């Protein structure tokens, strides 16, 4: 098989020495991790490699020799390097030599035990050690597969480099017996800010955990779980959003370190999402409280509510007349119309009763925008729901009336034809009715049938209004979900450090020369933005209506009530 040598580009200018790395026999590839320079004692080198192997679980060994001669080819050195092959027995012993500043290197192998001495082809693949060490391949393999041989070549190489971090910790300023060249041999780099933040994060997490336990203790107390209050909390979307964010805070402040890449990215995404949310919320707050915007909002709220009520009254007057040229049943029309008009009158009275307190309530409620833009949007959605509560009531009345009528009509229609619904067998059976039953049934059926257009029209109008409100609320919830679930940290990482999220690799063919091995450059192929968002999306608490359009239309036709927003965890009715 063709022999592949993965050589780190940082070692291209290293002094002569021996190569250490991992040999993968199934793929006939050698991953070189570092170059050990002269002078060294072979016994110490072997012991060091054993220690590293114990810590990292990677099978590191001495793979070959590296000869970087600045002047003419030194014969004695190359013989010495060949003799080294006897000391560190490795099959095959790889010899790479570079002359001066030439780009084209000589690469050969010494096979002692093979039967046929055929010249096998060698491919030299350069790779950027730091980038390969820091990057993560997607889709990530399960840890269960890592025990057996790596099915994929690339993941084997990435794992080898990533697991050998401890090898890269010694640099050339250390006074050990072994001098190596790798990507960090010029000095280990670290950032003071990162170290300080790591130190500060431990007490901060403990404080946050304590505060959160207090808050969740208060929330779970018995006082708030009485029936009217618990029903109210479950209906308000603000409480759902606050509970969701509390969960996020608990994830961040947990003292357990993230086990793998996915958990770490999840924590980082939640942290950045919370930060951006709070920042946008504070921005909104500063805009609201400047120039008395709250006062203006409160001043326009009552006239808007009045205007909506007036429009509804006009609509009802129109329905009570001859809407769209249809002829309504006068008596039923008047009854329904007056009932709804009285309702609106009550509603307006309540709003006017509350009007002196509106500004103060809004002022305090607006303060909660500092908890995040999502909370502010949820409050807006709840305010819309409260203000249009009368539309919801009208929809429910209209729907129940219409539903009753439809059921009555269908049952009496069956009676008209001489059939009956068998509850036990869940099917329609024939039945013989008495004459008076048939008479009353037919009479009722006729009455219901002729009253149907009036009820249907009221139902249609109020259903459309309710759907309008539902659509507006739905858009707000969509925006909240977007802010909740967007993995901003991953997107920014993909933008700034694209080598950290790898979809694969790409090879570039470098200049070739006849007789020399094939030279390739291995670069990291970053994940596309769509894949990044899909892989690292944060889960949200709301599930969108699973009803298909057909079942929705059927429910509308029959007059069954529609509940568009079902939250995960709610019992399905």
């Amino acid at each position: 098989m063709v022999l592949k040598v993965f050589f780190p580009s940082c070692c291209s200018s290293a002094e002569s020495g021996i190569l250490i790395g991992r040999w993968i026999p199934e793929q006939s590839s050698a991953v070189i991790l570092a170059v050990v320079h002269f002078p060294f004692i072979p016994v110490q080198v072997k012991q060091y490699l054993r220690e590293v192997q114990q810590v990292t679980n990677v099978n590191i060994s001495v793979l070959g020799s590296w000869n970087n001669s600045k002047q003419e080819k030194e014969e004695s050195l190359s013989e010495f390097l060949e003799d080294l092959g006897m000391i560190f027995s490795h099959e095959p012993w790889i010899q790479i030599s570079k002359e001066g500043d030439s780009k084209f290197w000589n690469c050969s192998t010494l096979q002692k035990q093979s039967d046929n001495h055929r010249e096998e082809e060698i491919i030299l693949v350069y790779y950027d050690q730091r980038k390969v060490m820091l990057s993560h391949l997607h889709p990530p393999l399960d840890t269960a597969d890592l025990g057996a041989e790596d099915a994929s070549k690339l993941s084997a190489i990435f794992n080898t480099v990533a697991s050998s971090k401890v090898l890269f910790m010694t640099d050339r300023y250390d006074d050990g017996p072994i001098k190596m060249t790798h990507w960090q041999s010029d000095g280990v780099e670290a950032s003071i800010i990162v170290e300080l933040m790591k130190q500060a994060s431990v007490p901060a997490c403990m404080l946050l955990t304590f505060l959160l336990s207090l808050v969740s203790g208060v929330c779970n107390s018995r006082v708030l779980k009485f029936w009217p209050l618990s029903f109210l909390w479950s209906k308000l979307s603000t409480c759902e959003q606050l509970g969701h964010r509390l969960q996020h805070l608990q994830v961040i402040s947990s003292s357990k370190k993230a086990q793998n890449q996915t958990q770490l990215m999840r924590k980082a995404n939640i942290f950045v999402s919370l930060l951006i949310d709070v920042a946008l919320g504070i921005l909104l707050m500063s805009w609201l409280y400047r120039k008395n915007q709250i006062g203006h909002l409160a001043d326009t709220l009552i006239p808007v509510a009045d205007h909506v009520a007036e429009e509804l009254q006009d609509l009802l007057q129109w329905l009570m007349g001859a809407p769209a040229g249809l002829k309504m049943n006068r008596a039923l029309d008047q009854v329904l119309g007056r009932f709804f008009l009285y309702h609106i009158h009550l509603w307006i009275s309540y709003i006017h009763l509350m009007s002196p307190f509106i500004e103060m309530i809004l002022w305090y409620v607006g303060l909660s925008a500092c908890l995040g833009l999502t909370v502010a949007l949820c409050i807006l959605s709840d305010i819309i729901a409260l203000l249009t509560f009368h539309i919801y009531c009208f929809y429910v009345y209209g729907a129940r009336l219409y539903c009753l009528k439809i059921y009555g009509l269908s049952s009496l229609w069956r009676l008209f034809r001489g059939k009956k619904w068998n509850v036990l067998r869940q099917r329609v059976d024939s039945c013989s009715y008495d004459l008076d039953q048939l008479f009353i049934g037919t009479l009722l059926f006729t009455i219901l049938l002729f009253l149907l257009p009036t009820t249907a029209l009221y139902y249609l109008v109020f259903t459309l209004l309710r759907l309008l409100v539902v659509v507006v609320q739905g858009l707000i919830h969509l925006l909240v979900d977007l802010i909740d679930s967007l993995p901003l940290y991953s997107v920014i990482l993909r933008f700034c450090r694209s080598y950290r999220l790898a979809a694969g690799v790409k090879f570039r063919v470098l200049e070739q020369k006849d007789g020399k091995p094939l030279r390739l450059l291995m670069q990291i192929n970053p994940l596309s933005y769509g894949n990044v968002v899909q892989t690292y999306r944060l889960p949200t608490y709301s599930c969108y209506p699973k009803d298909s359009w057909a079942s929705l239309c059927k429910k509308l036709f029959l007059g069954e009530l529609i509940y568009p927003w079902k939250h995960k965890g709610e019992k399905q009715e």
Partner: protein
Amino acid sequence: MEERRYRSASGAPLALRCRQHSASCRELAVRCPRLQLRSLSAVTSAVWLAAYGLFVLCQNSMVLSAAIFLTLIGLIIYLHFVKIDQESLLVIGSLGIQMTSSYASGKESTTFIEMSRVKDVVINEAIHMQKVIYYLCILLCDPQDPQGVSEVVPLFQSSKPRLDCLIEVYKSCHEILDQRKTASQPDGVK
């Protein structure tokens, strides 16, 4: 390195360039025709004439600036996301197969498939609109299940060369792919 002229399925002229880097590494590149100046100017003048017509109707100069803006944005989007200049295939025996598409704006989108996942490279027929065309595709398999085909990856989708060009590419690919079969035979027990 040779360059030969062929035609695409719709009649446009293509050029196939074949480079042999080493005994087990070959690069095959199909170059599509470049963006023509006359089609670009035709589209631009059509859009601007329509905008001028609208301007004469409604006397709002925003229409003109909007038309210029739209033309620029549309051209950038076309060059960066739609117009493919060259599609190339790099076959490295024992490493894998790499497909690269270079767009007119210089962007390159690359996919690399490891050799253990490649089962075979074949020429298939497909019904595309009203024509029956030939296309080259790579059959992928799961490393655990070498007999089944898990995915089909079509190649040269935007240039769509005709059968003669595809046969050249097929022969080149198979010269390298067959090497791995001969390499495995002396080592394998089967």
